[in-house]
């Protein structure tokens, strides 16, 4: 059977008469609906009736069926895998190519079996329009509704409904009208307005290509006319510019000294000279050049393009930030958000577990903070008492992230408002952000973004400084209980590194407290956060200067560290806990349990810096 599929695919393509580089578009459609409602049969029949099969193939499949004494089904024409035929169900979204005089179609056949909802999602997410198939005899079923719901969450807004197997209900208009009424109401509840409903029979071919004499009561569009009425997805060309940074490339081979910020433009466009701000850091620069290989020079570049550009200033940015254009709508930045999500994981989404959230190229650890409500997508029943989101459920939740990311809201820009959650190596759910929520460090982050935005860059890049000093700028944060030898260790470490020729500085907390912090009362607990913020800001300047900075502080808690990390890049911080008793929840990089000798403790921290590649390891 594999060969049959193969020929259909080739044939569809090969008949296409296009010049290289024409604007002609194909369109991707998905067939969704409950298992056994006849999606594959409709596709098979469409292939046969639009003459999209190679000569003799239909006869060959029929002959095979006769030999194996099983009734012929049009669905066999596209069952590409042995598995599928033996089980009689589609397990993945196979692709079928076919064409009409009007244009070329790629049809994704989404499995209707609940076990394969993740495959349905995979197929449907690529589609620009959907045909939802409902069996006239069986009526609206669980997955008729669930698939409808998933289509709306995936953002597919062109949906038409085919009421199939009309031959089995004697082409009864009443049956059709009842299903149309019931399903229209459902779609209305989830804010979908269907393009149309068509009564069909895939098996008999009624209303697919021509209006059927068996249903004179229906005078609307045929399926073929319906397909031709679907429009290509419109890329958000005139919206605010967003380019999630995939990476910053510098390939020095052959003397190439370009430093290229690379990514795919999700919306809007930019020109050479435009002011660009990167979020969540808030750093800014201007576009110096738009880069490409084997293509003419461009002065501007727009949505959909996998591109890259160089900047006027040597600012340090990394994968996960989003490039935006000054003067346009700013993205949201934060580490708490409210979202609607669907869950596909075997294990439910729970509160006592951490997940990885991926949004465009950004990534952060994430926890489920609150479930506002769960919705059973098969009947829209809602619950507010569940403490976990089960497989195939839809839910409104609050997520708490370890790191702030940049994003947009669902109503504003679609592509940059959608994320997935990874559970145990697998993508287990998808969500759409509805609201940015305040988190405890929002006030610090806002200051940091403004500081970065106003930052005056020097001509010496961070990389060049690191090369020159043979070290990565790093904050070594030594913490622990009182009187465990934090300061002696810090000073010994400073001395050892200094003697090795490193650019290193010990910053006593008191040195900041009475000078930089002179305007705030240091005794009061409620000023602790501001003290920490200022310490972190001073540290940030020292790190920008390329130093290894050694700081000591008593019993740093995780929330204190997180505040510091809002100001100083967490990858630039190494935390050391000194002493037997660990009295806070801070996550540290090194623990030195018993303090015997300051030189020994300092040496162990030096080894950590070597292992992390911050300073050179001699052998």
């Amino acid at each position, binding site marked *: 059977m*594999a*060969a049959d*599929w*193969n*020929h259909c*695919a*080739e*044939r569809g*393509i*090969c008949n*296409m*008469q296009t010049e*290289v*580089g*024409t*604007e*002609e*578009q*194909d369109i991707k459609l998905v067939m969704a609906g409950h298992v056994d409602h006849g999606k594959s049969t409709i596709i098979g029949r469409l292939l046969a009736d639009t003459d999209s099969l190679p000569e003799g193939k239909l006869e060959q499949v029929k002959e095979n069926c006769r030999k194996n004494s099983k009734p012929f089904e049009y669905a066999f024409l596209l069952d*590409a*895998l*042995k*598995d599928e035929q033996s089980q009689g169900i589609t397990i*993945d979204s*196979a*692709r079928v*190519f076919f064409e009409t005089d009007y244009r070329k179609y790629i049809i994704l056949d989404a499995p209707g079996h609940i076990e*394969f909802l993740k*495959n349905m*999602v*995979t197929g449907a*997410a*690529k589609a620009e329009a959907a045909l939802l198939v409902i069996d006239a005899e069986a009526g609206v079923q669980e997955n008729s509704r669930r698939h409808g719901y998933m289509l709306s969450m995936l953002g597919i807004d062109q949906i038409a409904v085919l009421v199939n197997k009309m031959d089995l209900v004697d082409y009864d208009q009443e049956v059709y009208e009842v299903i149309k009424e019931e399903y229209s109401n459902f779609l209305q509840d989830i804010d979908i307005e269907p393009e149309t409903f068509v009564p069909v029979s895939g098996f008999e071919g009624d209303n697919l290509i021509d209006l059927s004499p068996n249903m004179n009561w229906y005078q609307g569009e045929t399926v073929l006319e319906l397909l031709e009425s679907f429009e290509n997805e419109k890329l958000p060309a005139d919206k605010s510019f967003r380019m999630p940074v*995939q*990476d910053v*490339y510098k*390939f020095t*081979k*052959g003397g*190439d000294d*370009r430093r*290229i910020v*690379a990514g*795919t433009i999700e919306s809007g466009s930019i020109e050479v000279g435009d002011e660009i701000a990167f979020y969540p850091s808030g750093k800014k620069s201007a576009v110096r050049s738009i*880069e*490409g*290989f*084997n293509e003419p020079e461009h002065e501007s570049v727009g949505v*959909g*393009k*996998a591109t*890259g550009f160089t900047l006027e200033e040597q600012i340090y940015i990394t994968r996960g930030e989003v490039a935006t254009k000054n003067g346009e709508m700013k993205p949201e930045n934060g580490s708490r958000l409210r979202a609607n999500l669907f869950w596909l994981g075997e294990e439910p989404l729970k509160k006592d577990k951490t997940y990885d959230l*991926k949004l465009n*190229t950004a990534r952060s650890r994430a926890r489920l903070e609150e479930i506002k409500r769960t919705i059973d997508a098969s009947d829209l029943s809602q619950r507010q008492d569940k403490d976990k989101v089960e497989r195939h459920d839809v839910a409104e939740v609050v997520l708490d992230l370890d790191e702030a990311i940049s994003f947009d809201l669902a109503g504003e820009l679609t*592509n940059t408002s*959608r994320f*997935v959650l990874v559970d145990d*190596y697998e*993508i287990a759910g*998808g969500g759409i952000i509805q609201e940015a929520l305040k988190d405890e460090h929002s006030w610090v982050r806002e200051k940091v973004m403004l500081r970065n935005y106003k930052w005056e860059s020097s001509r010496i890049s961070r990389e060049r400084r690191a090369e020159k000093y043979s070290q990565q700028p790093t904050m070594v944060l030594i913490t622990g209980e009182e009187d465990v030898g934090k300061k002696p260790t810090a000073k010994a470490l400073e001395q050892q590194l200094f003697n090795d020729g490193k650019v290193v500085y010990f910053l006593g907390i008191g040195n900041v407290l009475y000078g930089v912090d002179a305007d705030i009362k240091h005794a009061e607990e409620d000023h602790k956060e501001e003290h920490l913020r200022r310490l972190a800001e001073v540290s940030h300047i020292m790190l920008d200067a390329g130093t290894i900075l050694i700081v000591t502080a008593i019993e740093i808690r995780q929330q204190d560290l997180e505040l510091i990390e809002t100001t100083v890049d967490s990858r630039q911080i190494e935390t050391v806990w000194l002493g037997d008793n660990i009295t806070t929840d801070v996550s540290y990089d090194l623990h030195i349990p018993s303090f015997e000798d300051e030189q020994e403790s300092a040496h162990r921290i030096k080894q950590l810096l070597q292992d992390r590649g911050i300073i050179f390891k001699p052998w």
Partner: protein
Amino acid sequence: MNHLDRLENKSIHILREAYSEFDNLSMLWSVGKDSTVMLWLARKAFFGHVPIPLVHIDTGYMIPEMIEHRDKLAREWELEMIYGINEEALEEDRTFPEGDASHLECCENMKTEALKRTLDGSWPRYRLNHNTGEYEIDDNKEPYTGVIVGGRADEEGSRSKERYFSARDENNDWHVSQQPPEFWSQYKTDFAPGTHVRIHPILDWTEVDIWEYIQRENIPVVSLYFDRGEGERYRSLGCYPCTDTVESTASNVEEVVEELKSGKFSDIAERDGRAQDEEDGGGLESLRREGYM
């Protein structure tokens, strides 16, 4: 943005995701048209550079022009070129038709096994030394945890089931019905120790797309694809004992495109000339489950 632009942008995006997310990444290059287009897309993705090692599996029965073409481009484009080969099976004559193996056994020995052992680093990898122009045993024996492959969904039934990022378990096995979902340009970039991920940047391309892109970008492909005056050419390249030429007078890219779109081949599948597809009855799926490309 036209059809080829859309395909190109998607493929470049996928290549860049793979490059950023995998530490031990390699790209399989068979020197055929598909993986050569993929290599070209990598040059576009990385602005003229190819920062990913290219792995070629030498089956011992390669058409000599392919090896010449491989080394020529490797030098011109400064590629990190690596090849692997099943020396044992060659010596022991476990091949077809010269040795005592069937078609499928030969494929398993010379392609599947050689690939598996080259990727996991348990067999020698030969790396091109650009200073001497010779291949030397590579010091790097780290397993590749991300492998970029040039499979196309329209080639053959089982390939239409592939994801862009597709997990393989420790035995290289592919579990077709257990695949994770893939949507919103988010891919499987997390993997358990011992497993690896195959990445398919040109999954959505068809044979005609490949040729139209070769034409548009002026990509150098091996001359075996063109008629050189004898009225025949290769439509698909593989080992010489098992890959037949087709009758055709298409002698350049334009003529190949024309022939595929409206000529004699518009109705015949590309892999028609490949023997291993027929023998198994079920297409390539059983081979693929064990790690065949």
